[in-house]
């Protein structure tokens, strides 16, 4: 069994599963109204910013948390990208009456990407425990196993960076909107 990226991060009876990129991609495709939430770790390589932009171009709006917005400004892709603090954003996401980034209502599916592991884990825990009616489904596409997300990748060590990049390419390919 895969251990959590932070080994003691064992939350309880409901632990999310590990899935390959194609499966997570098709799971995302099943969303009615998905949101991509990105964090500062995305900035460590241009490639990861490009991946976010590609997902954005599939019509999935982007909430840029931490200081990740810098990556989008540099690439001049700001359409559909909104700065949010992750804590505040999660506070909105847990409320079914929130109007969303477009003023038309909350999201049923959230994709976490490029966020410091333990902070992301806590926010995923909030959504798992409190965003249940209606359900907000969550996945992580970071290089970590995230038990508080419904689905995530396995832990990927830095020496596997190229494989991780391939996984992200495959994931983007398999998101159908």
């Amino acid at each position, binding site marked *: 069994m895969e*251990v*959590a*990226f*932070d*080994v003691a991060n064992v*939350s*309880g*009876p*409901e632990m999310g599963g590990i899935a390959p990129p194609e499966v997570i991609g098709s799971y995302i495709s099943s969303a009615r109204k998905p949101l991509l939430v990105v*964090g*500062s770790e995305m900035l460590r390589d241009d490639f990861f910013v490009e991946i976010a932009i590609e997902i954005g171009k599939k019509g999935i709006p982007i909430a840029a*948390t*931490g*200081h990740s*917005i*810098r990556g989008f*400004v*540099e690439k001049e892709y*700001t359409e559909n990208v*909104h*700065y949010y*603090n*992750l*804590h*505040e954003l*999660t*506070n*909105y996401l*847990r*409320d079914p009456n*929130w*109007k969303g980034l477009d003023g038309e209502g909350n999201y049923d599916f959230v994709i976490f990407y490029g*966020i*410091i*592991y*333990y*902070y992301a884990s*806590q*926010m995923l*825990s*909030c959504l*798992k*425990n*409190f965003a*249940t009616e209606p359900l907000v489904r969550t996945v992580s596409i970071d290089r970590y196993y995230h038990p508080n997300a419904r689905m995530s990748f396995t*832990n990927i*060590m*830095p*020496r596997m960076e190229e494989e991780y990049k391939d996984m992200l390419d495959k994931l983007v390919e398999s998101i159908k909107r």
Partner: protein
Amino acid sequence: MEEIKKGGLVDVFDLKNVDVHIGEIVDEGEGEEEWEPMGPHPMPRIATLRDWDFKLLNRYKPFYAPICDMCCLCTYGKCDLTGNKKGACGIRMDAQQGRIVLLACLVGCSAHCGHGRHLLHDMIKKFGPDVPIDFGPEVDIEAPLTRLVCGIKPKTIGDYDEVFSYVEEQIVQLADALHTGQEGSYMDFESKALHMGMLDSLNKEAADIIQIACYGMPTSLPGGGPDVPLVDVGIGTIDTNKPVIIVIGHNVPPAADIGVYLTENDLEDKVELGGICCTSIDTTRVYTKAKIVSALGRQLRVLRAGIADVVVTDEQCIRADVLELCQRVQSPMIATNDKAMHGLVDRTDDDPNKIVEDLVSGRVPGVIILEPDQVGEVAVRTALQMDKKRRSLNFILSDDEFKYYVNDCILCGGCTLACPNGLHIGEANKSAATGNIKPLADLFDLCVGCGRCEQVCKKHIPIVDVMTKAAYPQLKAEKGRMRIGRGPIWDSEIREVGAPLVLGTIPGIIAPIGCGNYPNGTKDAWLIVKEFAERNYIVTLTGCMAIDCALWKDEEGKTIYEAHHGRFDAGGVLNIGSCVSNAHIHGAAIKVASIFAGRPLRGNYEEIADYILSRVGACGVAWGAMSQKAASIATGFNRLGVPAVVGPHGAKYRRAFMSRPDIKEDWKLIDATDGSEVYVEPGPQDLLVACETVEEALPMMAKLCFRPSDTDRGRSIKLTHYIDLNQKYLSTYPPDWHLFVRAASDLPIATRNELLKKLEDEQEWKIDWKKKKIVEGPIRGYNPSFNPTNLERLIRGKK
């Protein structure tokens, strides 16, 4: 010139171009009842301030992120609470989280209360109960929290017996609420946590006042306040050619006794007295030859480096494996506090010769000495002898050992999975093995010094030692300077800055406090202080952040304390002192309400908190918050109306307090002048929020300094910094800056046209370009005589 009447309300907005002079607020020399009439809530009990708490909690709704989905507190359990389910006792996940938060605050508050009570016992035994509380000519309000919460004006340290009795009783009542089958509402758990936080702030003030009074720590007497001396900080400042004593913890009497022994025996220049954590800060307040070796985050590594010829522990923030660490490097240990005895034998009142002999011969790894006044002699004599014995020992890895270990690493990644910061140690080892040690050396400052990695390494690599070896040249060069803890902010300083703070022309007070569980190293602490001090905020530091920010230097080679003055005024960088000293930051905010605005203090917590929430632009930051004390400290700030930002690890506290700017009804205030209801902008937007990176935290802190009372000039200054920090660190305009614009005069003059255009284009506001006025758009217009309150009872006249 306008005189402000004692105890009367003053409408600050009517004061334009006037000097504010305030006479004595308190009548001296009369009976207890005469100094100020008693307010409505002296010594509040659990339910007394519940209405105030609920006002806060309804706007800043508790947000929960469980770190464990189960409860195992009674034998019905474990209970699975996932998805806000109920446990067998009926408690829901949300209430259970509130319960755990209350538990954390209980532990934190008890630590400060236990520390303060312990100190009071020791000081009464040593000096008697009649030590006067007199902080010199510039401090009349000596104990703002004690006056505010208890309605007591303490004259001697003995007066604190009653204060601690009150706190102790309340702590027990609050602890009772944690039992299975008691409280069931998360809102009430949080109200109790806020009560605990307030008690905690009172403990801290009590503890610091007692030690200041008894040890003559800096006050407003000559040499105090802004003029306190600088001391050395950093591992590199310790001269290991001398015997070295390292003190660790928070309770200063044993370390103070070491200082006295060194002075009396003319050993000040012959023996190094260094410290880790708050004891070190407080030791420099009584013995300025002491040095601050490091903050909490480097404890493990300082001990492992073996520089200590003797280690003296007191209480709090000491590693639980301290004895094992000392034994490993043959440093004898002296435990001086019954709360942390580490299995050693109590040798209090034993013959010092025998104790020293046992320690030096290695017959015992350490001893307990519970009388602070017996510690100095034993510690110093032991250090003198151990220095000779230990001189030939070296605990830094040799080049060959280092090479062997980095080559032995198999890049399995086990250490990374165990590391709280997920550091890529294996890759750094690999790089060192091929000759580039920089990545490994760089990890030293990012590491929080927990030691978890080593326990899982299948190759038994002493990872912490390997990192220390790689970073050793930097460590030897680590020599900072910091001001010693100055204690209370002077009343005279408050008189100077009260108006600019409330009007907003000094954009805010930034209070970096607390522990070293940083996401990205100590440099962030320096950057936070530098950024705000250079922008003319007042920066008041305590605890680990006060130490860590002193490790870094600017282009001119100056530390942040050397580059900035130490006055409580625009651009000041003040070390207030140890963790207990941060009560003086509460105190400064309270004094603004009291001295500047003439609000009565005595037993009047709710009104003062209401004042601070709406008018005093202060924001705490606990960038490496780790402990339960940090939880109760932040909660205490929150009840008084002061928001706090934490680093990403702070999300593990499980609870945050964030508002909803999009829910208009949450932002309805009352104008106390006529009782009318006013919808206002979200200031402050949150009471407790985590940021992912320092780049995000800097603009967030600037945002949390907005207050509804800001004048247009003050608002334009705050907006300038908010927008500028966003552009500097997030490369964009803040999405919500328009919420804080009430009128064109709120906009900075230099960019007014550009900003008006943005409001017209992006927010569809109506602008009268001829008059350069906003015609339609803002949440409210700017009303210079707005007198904001959340409390109906403060309405002065009905419309």
